[in-house]
């Protein structure tokens, strides 16, 4: 397989994007300016009732921290995508994206601002889906720590400009990305900034073979690919 010409576009601050990826294609998010959060949600194109399940993603891989080589699991015991590259190391699945309430609180005057939940609802609607078709989401480039007592904190200094993540699709998927800051960063007064999106075909070294996956759980999920 040859690496075809990659398409790069800017995703402006406070905007969202719906990206269709065929199995094997890659979506790279370049966080050039150090944005504190890009919300993401994924549906399987062949059957949109199958979608990102962050609980299974954390539980199956035994960690709230995902990074290079981690898979994003659906609710059907399958991997929708794998994080083929990650130079950031901080992604949140416990707190999720901003909402009308978090945005209104952060604005200080109760004003409406673009937020991840509204973005994802709009994206879902454009696929003919409803609010019920959205579950808990992932926020890339967001550093959330958990204390012994369960307290969550935002660690702003861990997010640096110039990092990127790359998702490789393992099924044909719809991905929505919301370029709005993580709600805990929003509460600290941090503002969104543009990120670059690049869609490309996967290199030959990609994760389309069972043996490419390091863990037994990922290999079992690979075996579920052909199940109804």
């Amino acid at each position, binding site marked *: 397989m040859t690496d075809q010409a990659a398409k790069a576009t800017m995703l402006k601050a406070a905007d969202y994007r719906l990206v269709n990826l065929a199995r094997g294609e890659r979506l790279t998010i370049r966080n050039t300016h150090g944005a504190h959060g890009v919300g993401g949600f994924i549906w399987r194109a062949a059957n949109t009732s199958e979608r990102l399940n962050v609980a299974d993603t954390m*539980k199956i891989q035994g960690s*709230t921290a995902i990074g290079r080589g981690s898979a994003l699991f659906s609710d059907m015991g399958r991997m929708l995508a794998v994080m083929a590259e990650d130079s950031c190391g901080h992604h949140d699945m416990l707190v*999720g994206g901003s909402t009308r309430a978090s945005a209104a609180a952060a604005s200080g005057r109760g004003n409406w601002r673009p937020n991840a*939940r509204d973005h994802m609802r709009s994206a879902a609607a454009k696929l003919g889906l*409803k*609010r019920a*078709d959205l579950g808990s989401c992932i926020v890339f480039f967001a550093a959330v*720590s958990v204390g012994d007592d369960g307290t969550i904190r935002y660690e702003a200094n861990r997010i640096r400009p110039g990092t990127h993540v790359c998702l490789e699709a393992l099924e044909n998927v719809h991905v929505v990305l919301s370029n709005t800051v993580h*709600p805990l960063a929003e509460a600290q007064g941090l503002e969104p900034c543009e990120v670059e999106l690049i869609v490309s075909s996967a290199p030959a070294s990609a994760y389309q073979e069972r043996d490419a996956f390091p863990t037994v*759980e990922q290999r079992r999920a690979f075996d579920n690919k052909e199940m109804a």
Partner: protein
Amino acid sequence: MVQHSQTRDARAEPQWRFAWRVPARAPWSGVIHRGETLRIIDLFGSQAVDTLFYAASARGERYCAQTTVRTQRNIYVRRGTVLMSNEDRPMLTVIADTLNDHDTSAGCCSKESNSVRYGAETRHQHACRENFLSELSRYDMGKADMVSNLNFFMRVPVLADGSFAIVDGLSRPGTYIDLRAEMDVICVLSNCPQMNNPCNAYNPTPIEVKIATVPTSP
């Protein structure tokens, strides 16, 4: 002395309008009206109870784990936690809790995730997701209505390095949690049948659910 007797009256056994023993491995659902209290009792200890809530008036509004965590700035559910909806509204408040630190991030077990976590030979086993789907169908709801749930009486600590694993339950026989409804809600729960990890001490047991017409605590 008068003060004392008033306190005792306030703590008198509440008026339960409903009580039901949910068999091991079984689902249950019911409507809790605003101002009423739902009590869930772990009768025999160490029994996970996977639970979801829906607004009775508009079922697209439902419990949202991430909004709940964000709002209280803590990942555990305990006395004082307000369970939030996907419309940023309070659904229920934890007004009594004899355990504390219930999970709401690890989701429920399913045949599909069992096949991944424990091998294809466990796929035939019953799972919470099956309970949820069959119970939700009675309200004309389905898979899209299933989201990250509450896991009452289940502990999933997050360590400094992000590790995340279900550990032995600390819940003793008779442990309970009381939730006051802030809106009319449908509760759908699964008395977890999981046999492959310690969430049910490898022995699923019955639980009891009760509904009181008033809050059971101030």
